[in-house]
């Protein structure tokens, strides 16, 4: 079916791309549907995982390591986000004594 021979392991790349698509979308489902704020942030980490996997898979296709260096920056942002977001969650928890994000639903204006 494919006329030319790939210079990379096509099955690993395809599996990684499919996994990345699924991880991103499952993370999105979790972020939209879970009510617990900590689990919502855990789901954004899932989406980060999906993005990192896609970067590395495409970097493997092109035979360079730029994708891997981008993943280092993803790790940096994920660490910064975890520190800040979890600090915010603790602050919000102290105010309302619940982790339910619906507790803050009066923030929507209508």
């Amino acid at each position: 079916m494919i006329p030319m021979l790939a210079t990379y392991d096509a099955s690993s790349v395809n599996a990684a791309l499919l996994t990345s698509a699924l991880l991103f979308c499952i993370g999105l489902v979790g972020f939209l549907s879970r009510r617990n704020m900590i689990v919502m942030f855990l789901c954004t980490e899932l989406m980060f995982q999906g993005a990192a996997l896609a970067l590395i898979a495409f970097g493997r296709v092109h035979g360079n390591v730029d994708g891997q260096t981008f993943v280092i920056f993803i790790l940096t942002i994920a660490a910064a986000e975890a520190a800040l977001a979890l600090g915010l969650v603790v602050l919000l928890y102290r105010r309302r004594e619940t982790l339910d994000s619906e507790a803050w639903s009066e923030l929507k204006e209508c």
Partner: protein
Amino acid sequence: MVEDGRLEDRSRVFRRGASCEFNGPALHSPLRLRCVLGPPTSVGAAKGNIDTSGSSPLDYLMDQSAPSDLISSSHCMLALVAIASAGLVLLMRPGARALRLAGSVLALAGVAGLFVEVLKLASGGQGVPPIFPVIFGVTAVAGAARVVTHPRPVFAAIYFILVVVASASLFLLLEAEFMAFALIIVYAGAILVTYMFVLMLAQQSPLDGESASNWYDRVPREAVSCVIIAFVMVATLTQVLFSPNEEARRVASSQRTALQAESDQWDALEGLPEQLKAIVRERLELTRTEPIEFVATDAHTRVRSDGDKHFVIASVQGKDLRVELSSADLPVNAQLVGTTLVKDYPASIEVAGVILTMALFGAVVLARKQVELNEDERRELAGLSRLSVEPEAGANR
């Protein structure tokens, strides 16, 4: 006759449209294009910028050379994504255990079928698909589904570690060893510990007589519509990423960049002069018995190539010697990542450092306990005398 001619004409127009849209290599048959377009669902609508009015069902018959299994592969993937989504919906519903079991079976079957289908595409339909990518991929996706559906946040965090380990294994399969271990150390080791601490700080202990988890962890919000959004996204992504057209374009692009990738690796070795000198010294000591006074200047540690051989000109006791290098001398993954990071993205490292510092400050500011002080206490802290004469009045104010 006239009808035939018009069909022929339309088909040509369609062909031209196809080659405009996909100026990749070779594969421009209308059949393949329709495979990219997929079935007439929201996925097809998402790619509606391609003019499909020129295509009629007769085009199938006119192009006899194209294999007919392409269409079924694309449809099959869509059906499997739908099955997996249905399973996920059942998994997210609280309540009946049998339904959740059926959901997990459905989701697992859908995801595993999807992986096998995608790997069949990679191998061109021949041979048995390799087992490790399937195992790690299915493990990662199953763990992710459990993160999303588990009613207890601590268990969700532990399943997230499973996802991290499985995707690190996929990184290993993709020859990204450094990032695989960095991912485990940073995610599973550092970020997840932070999550665990916050869970312990913020989790309410359930009262006696209640179930082990809070109600808001058991009841999802708008599960069905969320999964529909995800279904549309996954369907679009699989149609776009795993069409044979795109597969062939990836292969062609990798071949175009293969030479460049190799010369980049030799350049990276040049960027590690001490290691290059060590390699040259080792080679020279293998062949010569007398002590070597190895002189290398910048000009002499340059990797040159003639055809497919790479070599270094080393200056030994006044004479220039040619030392051949093999591909085993190329820098390993961690060295490549490091040299690329500092050579190509130095400004990004600075920005990342600034972001980390600001996150540190932000976390400290957020976590600090805020105590309300009245005017008198503030003045006292500043070393000034109290304003109010009577303490009772100050307390009432």
